C-alpha cells in the first residue's frame, strides 16, 4: 500500500498548502465586516471547470495509484511470471505523445484565436488518440495470440486490467474531445472554446503521464527502480 500512501501524501501536500492560505488560525468571531479587508487569498482565480477537472484527476490518480499498490502486493507472491512487453507499445506511446502535443498546440492556438490551427490540433489529437487505442487493442491481440491469456498469470491479468482501465479513460476523454471539436466547427464562443480546449489538453497530459507511469510499471522498470532505491537506503 506504499504507492497509494505516497500518492495521498502528495495530495495532502496540496491540501495543506491550500489550507495554509485559509487562515485557519484566525479567530473568526473577532472579524466582522466584509472579508476582503482581511482575506487576500480566498477563492482561486482559475476557472471553476479547471478546478473541477483537477479534483477529478486527483481521483483518477488515486485509482491508478491503488492499482499500482495492488500490483506490487500481488507481485510479491510466488506465482508471478512477468510477460514480455509487445514492441507495439512503444509506437502507441509515441502516438499518445503526439496526441498530447497536438492538443497543446491547439490550446496555444486557442489563446491566440487561430481557429484553423485549433481545428487541426483537435482533429490530430483525436486521430492519434484513436490510433493509440487501436494500437493497444492490437497489443492485446498479439499477446493473446502468443498465449498470454488474461487468467493464466496475475502479471497478465494486471496488464490487461490496467491498460484496459487507462484505455477506458481515453475513451471518456474522446467524448469530451469530440464535443470540443464540434464546438470548434460550430462557432462556439472563443473564450468558451479556449477553456474546453485547455481542459482537454490538461486531461490528455495527465493521461499521458499515467500511461508513462503504468508503462514503466508493467515493463518492470518501476520495480527495478524501487529495488535500487531500497538498496541505496539500506
Amino acid at each position, binding site marked *: 500500500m506504499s504507492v497509494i500512501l505516497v500518492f495521498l501524501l502528495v495530495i495532502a501536500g496540496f491540501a495543506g498548502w491550500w489550507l495554509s492560505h485559509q487562515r*485557519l488560525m484566525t479567530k*473568526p468571531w473577532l472579524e466582522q465586516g466584509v*472579508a476582503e479587508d482581511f482575506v487576500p487569498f480566498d*477563492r482561486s482565480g482559475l476557472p471553476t471547470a479547471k478546478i473541477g477537472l483537477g479534483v*477529478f484527476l486527483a*481521483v483518477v490518480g488515486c485509482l491508478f495509484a*491503488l492499482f499500482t499498490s495492488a500490483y506490487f*502486493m500481488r507481485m510479491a507472491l510466488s*506465482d508471478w511470471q512477468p510477460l514480455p512487453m509487445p514492441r507495439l507499445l512503444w509506437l502507441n506511446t509515441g502516438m499518445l505523445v503526439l496526441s498530447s502535443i497536438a492538443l497543446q498546440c491547439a490550446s496555444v492556438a486557442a489563446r491566440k484565436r487561430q481557429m484553423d490551427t485549433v481545428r487541426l490540433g483537435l482533429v490530430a489529437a483525436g486521430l492519434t488518440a484513436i490510433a493509440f487505442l487501436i494500437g493497444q487493442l492490437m497489443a492485446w491481440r498479439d499477446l493473446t495470440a502468443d498465449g498470454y491469456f488474461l487468467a493464466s498469470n496475475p502479471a497478465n491479468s494486471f496488464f490487461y*486490467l490496467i491498460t484496459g482501465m487507462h484505455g477506458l479513460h481515453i475513451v471518456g476523454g474522446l467524448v469530451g474531445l469530440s464535443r470540443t471539436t464540434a464546438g470548434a466547427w460550430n462557432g462556439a464562443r472563443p473564450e468558451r472554446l479556449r477553456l474546453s480546449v485547455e481542459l482537454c489538453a490538461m486531461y490528455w497530459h495527465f493521461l499521458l503521464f499515467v500511461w508513462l507511469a503504468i508503462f514503466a510499471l508493467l515493463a518492470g522498470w518501476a520495480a527495478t527502480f524501487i529495488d535500487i532505491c531500497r538498496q541505496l537506503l539500506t
Partner: protein
Amino acid sequence: MVDVTPADAVPPAEVAEMELYHPHSWWTKYVFSQDAKVIAIQYSATATAIGLVALVLSWLMRLQLGFPGTFDFITPEAYYQFITMHGMIMVIYLLTALFLGGFGNYLIPLMVGARDMVFPYVNMLSYWIYLLAVLVLVSSFFAPGGPTGAGWTLYPPQAIMTGTPGGQEWGIILMLVSLILFIIGFTMGGLNYVVTVLQGRTRGMTMMRLPLTVWGIFTATVMALLAFPALFVACVMMLLDRVLGTSFFMPAVVEMGEQLQHNGGSPILFQHLFWFFGHPEVYIVALPAFGIVSDLISTHARKNIFGYRMMVWAIVGIGALSFVVWAHHMYVSGMHPYFGFFFATTTLIIAIPTAIKVYNWVLTLWRGDIHLTIPMLFAMAFIVTFVNGGLTGLFLGNVVVDVPLSDTMFVVAHFHMVMGVAPIVVIFGAIYHWYPKVTGRMLNETLGRFHFWVTFLGAYLIFFPMHYIGLMGVPRRYAEMTDVTVMTESAHHLNSFISIMAFIVGFAQIVFLFNLIWSIRHGREAGGNPWRATTLEWQTPQTPPAHGNFGKELPIVYRWAYDYSVPGAKEDFIPQNMPGTFGPSREPA
C-alpha cells in the same frame, strides 16, 4: 460600521452570476432537474426507500436471532443474504447517499451562499447513476439464487464460491456492478460538493466563516473521493476473478472436494483494499454528522459552538488520520503481526481529536440557553450514543484487546452504536431542523417526541446489552447461536428482548415517515427562520427557497456562522449576512 462595499472589489463574475439553468417543463423541473435542492430530495427519497428495505431485513434477522428455529423461511442461507444486504444498504446506499447526496446537495449551496452547485448537469447525472445502482442492487433480490450472502465485507474467497449464497450465481455480480455504479455516480456528485465549497462561496464567506456542517460534508467528500477508488479497484478485480477466472484474490482452493482453477491470489490484498476504503467510510459518515450536530447544538442552545477553530482542525485532522488506520480492522486477519503496533497507535491517536469534538459539544451546552427542541434532543442522543460507541472503539482499536472481541457481537454492537445509531439520530435531528426550510412547515411535535423517545431509548437498549453478548464470546454472523456453549440460557432471553426492542424501534420509524408525509400538508406554518438561526439557508427570501436560492442578489457575508447571544446585540442571534459590528472588545475589522 465599516461595511461600505467598494464596488470594484467584486469577486470573479462566475461566482456571483454563474450560468443558471432554467427548467422549462414539469419534467426538467421535478424529474430531470439540475437544481441541487430537487436532486437532494430525490437522493433522500431514494435513500429512505432503500433504507426501509434494510430496516425490514434487520427485522427478519432479529426474528431469527431472537426466536431461533421459529421461522422456517429464515434458513442460514437467507439469513446471510439479509445481513449482507442490510449492512451494505445501510452503510453505502443509505448513510453515504443521504449525508452527501441528500444533505450535501441541499445544504452546501444554501449555506455557502451559492445559487446552485457548480456543475449542475453532472450533479443530475450523479443522482440518476445512483438510482441505477440502487435498482441493480434491488434486482439481485429477484435474480436466480438471490442476493449475495457474503457479508457486507465481501471477503474473498468465500464471496465468489458455492458455499456462499449468490457466490456462484448472480448475487455477487450484481452487488459488485451496483457498487461500481455507485462509485461512479458518487464521484460525479462529490466533485460538485468539493468544487462548490472551493469556488462557489459568496462574497465574504471565507472558509473560517463556514458552518461546521459544510466543513464536515466538505472534508467527508474529499475523503470519499480518495477512498472510494479503493473499493472500485477491489470490486473490479473481484469481478474479474469471479467472471473471467483471474487470480487477483483467489488462492488455490478446494471447493467441496474439488480443486478450483485459481492459483496464488491473496485474500489479504482484498482486505487491504476494502478497508482502505472501509475505514475512511466510517468517517465519511461520521464527519457530516459531526458538522450537523455542531450546528444543531449551537442553534438550539443559543450559544456559539465552543472552540470553533479546534472543531475545524479536528475535522481536518480526523480526515487525514483516518487514512492511516485501516488495518485495525485486520488485527486478526493474519497480516504481519508487527503492523499491529503501528495501527493500534494511529487508531488511539485519532481518539484525541474525536474526544475534543465531544468536549466542545458538551461545553457548548455549558451556560447556554438550552431549548429542548426535537433537534436538540436528537443531538443529545447523538452525544450519548456516539460517546458510548466511540469508547468501545478504544477496545477494538487497541490491538490486543481486539483479539478476543473481534468478530464477536461486541463488534456488531460497537459499530451499530457509533456508525448506525449515532449518525441516524443526527439525520433525524437534521430532518426536524431543516424540514421547515424544505417544506415551509414544521413537523408534528407530538409525533416527533414520540419518535425521539422510542428511537433513542430503544436503540440504546438494543445495542448496549449486545456488547455483553459479544464479551461472552459469541461470534457475530451466526444464524444460529443455540449451539454455542458460551451462550447461556439467560443470554438467549436477552437476545429475544433485543429483538422485541428492534421491532418497536422500527415501528417508530414508520410513525416518523407518516409524520414526514402528513406534515407537508398539515404541519404548522414555519416562516422563513423558525429556529432564529444565523446561517444563510435561513435567510432566503422565499421558503422553500426558490430556484436560484437567493432571489436577485446573492447575500454578502459579514460574520461567522455562530453569532448567538452576542453581548450588546438586541436579538440573541445575528444572521451571517447582517452588516455591523457587535460585541465586547472586538478588534476593529
